């Protein structure tokens, strides 16, 4: 539930569909084709005849920019050349440099567009904030827009106000001459599409004007996915690709699928499978705080995972979640053992006794491994039926002869973090 990046292909597809409706003169034809590992180039050429009638531009479409600077941009090739270029790169791992650092990932999606001969490169972006939606415009677009940020003009359209009541004259300078009207028309249309389709970020850098017709060359967009119930029809068939280089482990995938099927929330990210501190924390807020505390106590390299389960998960769901963690935890041994932190704040709705039933089943199943791997368990939780839940898990520890320390709301929520750190001999 948040702002999510979409493919340039999808963003341009939406623009091509809606620009004619929301502008009086823009005739962007939206010639664009997406190539995936399963694409049949012959079929593609049938679907998009323009592929064989001119020079093309090819680039990866996987939510990362600076493609030119990373040598991942092919300009002016014919369709044959485009295929060859894509085939050489498809399913290959590349490392890209961005302002935020380097990322390694596998190339799986490419887009092909007709090459547009152009001279001018303009910049336009729309960004949302609490006050309104701000339009940024510059005549110095292209790869160096950041260096020329002082040339960028901006205009915020306050919430509840319409773009039609705004004066765009100071945003779009008169230097544009005859193109000015077309550009203003384009920006206004763009803004209306942005709002109608629940965009939360849209950047076209650059776009150009050819014979008074606007052509977007490079587009970055994010949608507010909570707007799906209003806009999914306008979005069409889109996917929200994972950010480039993000790899999902099979265990994370299991929990992801469990989460998608459930009314509860179940999240798991493995940070370091060799780490000695494992978290199984209830609640989104609390889970962040437990991970924080491990890091704040200087144990960043020992933090094995981040995740949370909340919203009153069923016994079965809790069981799968707990088992996934314990299975990973007991793959490799550490001479000084490991710690599992079953933490959480004071629940509002979640029946603590019920969730602990699922956890207890798994602890029982893994009892031999827990002893063998010298795993110490720390529990801290409150909420409905917490006394019963805590009592159960405490008794289980005694019965199975595994080390389980149990605390309730009388103990500070994160107290078990320093206890575990100390017991593992880490400080």
């Amino acid at each position, binding site marked *: 539930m*948040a702002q999510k990046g979409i493919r340039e292909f999808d963003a341009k597809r939406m623009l091509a569909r809606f620009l004619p409706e929301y502008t009086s003169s823009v005739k962007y034809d939206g010639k664009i084709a997406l190539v995936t590992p399963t694409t049949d180039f012959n079929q593609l050429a049938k679907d998009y005849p323009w592929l064989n009638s001119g020079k093309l531009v090819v680039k990866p479409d996987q939510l990362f920019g600076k493609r030119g600077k990373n040598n991942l941009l092919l300009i002016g090739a014919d369709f044959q050349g485009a295929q060859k270029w894509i085939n050489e790169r498809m399913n290959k791992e590349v490392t890209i440099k961005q302002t935020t650092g380097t990322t390694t990932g596998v190339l799986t999606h490419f887009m092909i567009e007709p090459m547009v001969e152009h001279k001018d490169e303009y910049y336009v972006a729309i960004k*949302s904030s609490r006050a309104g939606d701000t339009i940024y415009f510059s005549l110095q677009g292209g790869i160096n827009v950041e260096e020329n940020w002082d040339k960028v003009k901006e205009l915020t359209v306050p919430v509840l106000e319409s773009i039609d009541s705004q004066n765009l004259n100071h945003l779009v300078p008169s230097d544009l001459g005859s193109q000015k009207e077309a550009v203003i028309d384009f920006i206004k249309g763009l803004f209306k599409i942005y709002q109608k389709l629940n965009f939360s970020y849209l950047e076209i850098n650059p776009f150009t004007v050819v014979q008074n017709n606007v052509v977007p060359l490079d587009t970055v967009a994010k949608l*507010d996915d*909570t707007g799906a119930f209003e806009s999914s029809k306008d979005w069409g068939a889109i996917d929200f690709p994972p950010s480039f280089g993000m790899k999902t482990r099979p265990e994370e995938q299991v929990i992801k699928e469990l989460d998608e099927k459930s009314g509860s929330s179940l999240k798991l990210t493995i940070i370091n499978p060799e780490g000695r501190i494992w978290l199984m924390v209830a609640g989104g807020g609390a889970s962040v705080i437990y991970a924080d505390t491990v890091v704040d106590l200087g144990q960043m390299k020992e933090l094995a995972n981040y995740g949370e389960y909340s919203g009153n998960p069923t016994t079965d769901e809790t069981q799968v979640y707990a088992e996934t963690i314990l299975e990973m935890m007991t793959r490799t041994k550490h001479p000084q053992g490991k710690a599992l932190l079953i933490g959480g704040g004071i629940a*509002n709705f979640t029946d603590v006794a019920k969730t602990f039933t699922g956890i207890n089943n798994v602890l029982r199943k893994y009892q031999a491994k827990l002893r063998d791997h010298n795993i110490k368990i720390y529990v801290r939780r409150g909420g409905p039926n917490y006394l019963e839940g805590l009592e159960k898990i405490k008794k289980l520890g005694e019965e199975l002869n595994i080390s389980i320390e149990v605390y309730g709301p009388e103990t500070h929520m994160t107290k078990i973090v320093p206890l575990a750190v100390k017991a593992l001999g880490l400080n």
Partner: protein
Amino acid sequence: MNNKPDYILFDKDTQAIIFNYQQNAIQRMLDFDHACARKTPSVASIVNPTGKAGFHKAYFGQKEILIPIYPTLKEASDNHPHADVVINFASFRSSYATSKEALENKNIRTVAIIAEGVPEARARELAEIAKLKKKWIIGPATVGGVVAGAFKIGNTAGTIDNIIESKLYKQGTVGFVSKSGGMSNEMYNIIARNTDGLYEGHAIGGDRYPGSTLIEHLLRMNKNPDIKMLVCLGEVGGEDEYQIIDAMKNGGITKPIVCWVTGTCASMFSSGVQFGHAGARADSNRETAKAKNEALKNAGAIVPNSFDDFGEKINDTWKKLNIKEKVVPAPKVTLDYNEAKALGMVRKSSNFICTISDDRGEEVTYNKMPLSKVINEGLGIGGVISLLWFKRQLPDYCHRFIEIILQVCADHGPAVSGAHNTAVTARAGKDLISSIVSGMLTIGPRFGGALDGAASDFSHALDSNMTPLEFVNSMKKKGDNIQGIGHRIKSVQNPDIRVTIIKEFARKHFPSCKLLDYALEVEKITTSKRNNLILNVDGCIGICFVDMMRSCGSFTLEEAKEYVDMGALNALFVLARTIGFTGHYLDQKRLKQPLYRHPWDDIAFL
């Protein structure tokens, strides 16, 4: 709206309209009210947009009260103009429209929006409308907030024992605000343990554009003279915490403020991992938890080293204020029976006992055996009857014997009284149950009842060591027919095939057929008097069933007797014949048979 100062959102007189029929949340609010010794319930009315006007019955302490329900917010508000809060439980789809309507209503001053997943653009519009109208939104995507000892939103603060434990029933001096609703109970707990308790606390929700912001609440709380210190739990992402710093610099915040921004671990995650809330994502170095914690500290806020010493810092700060804690004894809590039972605080003798089946678990059990096991082990109908009637699993041949009895007794043609009644009732246009029951009601001493009678008469004779002849003579003396002896048509020369089947099965499988042997001796005596005084099918079943129970090793002699006394044998007949009656009912319906009227010429009018 009443004339309370701007900085007070809720007090002991505040009443709310609940949008959507949220019965648990309503009861939780009323329980809180009672714990706070409120004079009036905090819920004035309920809007149930999919229902009709009416009343909701709820507890206010031990008293039951009726809360009016209206189909529209307008009606609810027109009838309860003093209620200035709407707690909106509408879904993310309808949350925008309903919240907007609430904001535009002149009586409403505060709207709490509970729904998660309200589109960012809509949430932003609502926030702007609230700002223009000088109203408050709490949420979206929040559990709400609470003013200790006065008013709470919906499910805030959890169960009543947590409310007492966190001292929320009485007014403290700490103002708290956070984004996370999930952490609010925990924070109220931490504040209760380290200070004289909360004055008020709000979770504004973790969305990007909450309807009210951290700073707005902190500025409001700073103006309230009853609030002596502030606590804020921020999070990574956004610039909100910098507004706090600005306010500390420009005099908007003058009270001691203890702050912690969560998400210090966020730097470890590769970009793209959405952790925690929608708004919780640092887009720049300035928005990281580390940068914000440092900036807050530099501006003079009290910032712990980690969440671990947040409580201590709150405690240190509160101690410096030298406030004497007002002691208010914890209220007596009226718990719901179910809640109290879950807590092990009450017991009550039950009105019903059941020992044969249990559907409370994942799967129904028959005498503690899960249904899947019953099916997988092929216990059959005989096995199910053994489990549910006799509460035990019998040897397989017993299960089969029960099934043979059911097959043998399933029907005996349309002329017997039960089948006849069933058909007549069906033809009178009545339903299945009425028709079968009317047939069933004829079962008794003269029709079908011989199973029980034979079993008990013969076993009594055998158990009291009477010889077969003594038994026959004693019955003769009493002038009673021997139950289970005699047939209208069948005779020694023309044996009943059903009796043969039963006898042969018993001889083949039962370890002992003592009562059958005895009965056959009796039969020798009776048939010597009249050819048709044979052991009939009812008698044979009853007697063989006694042999089965007595010899299979699963019953004591007492148990075997008790089941006969309780009517278990009759039950076999009833169960079996229900199959036949159902058949006759369906047959009549299928044949579209008209109302049956008995012909006059078949009735002797005397």
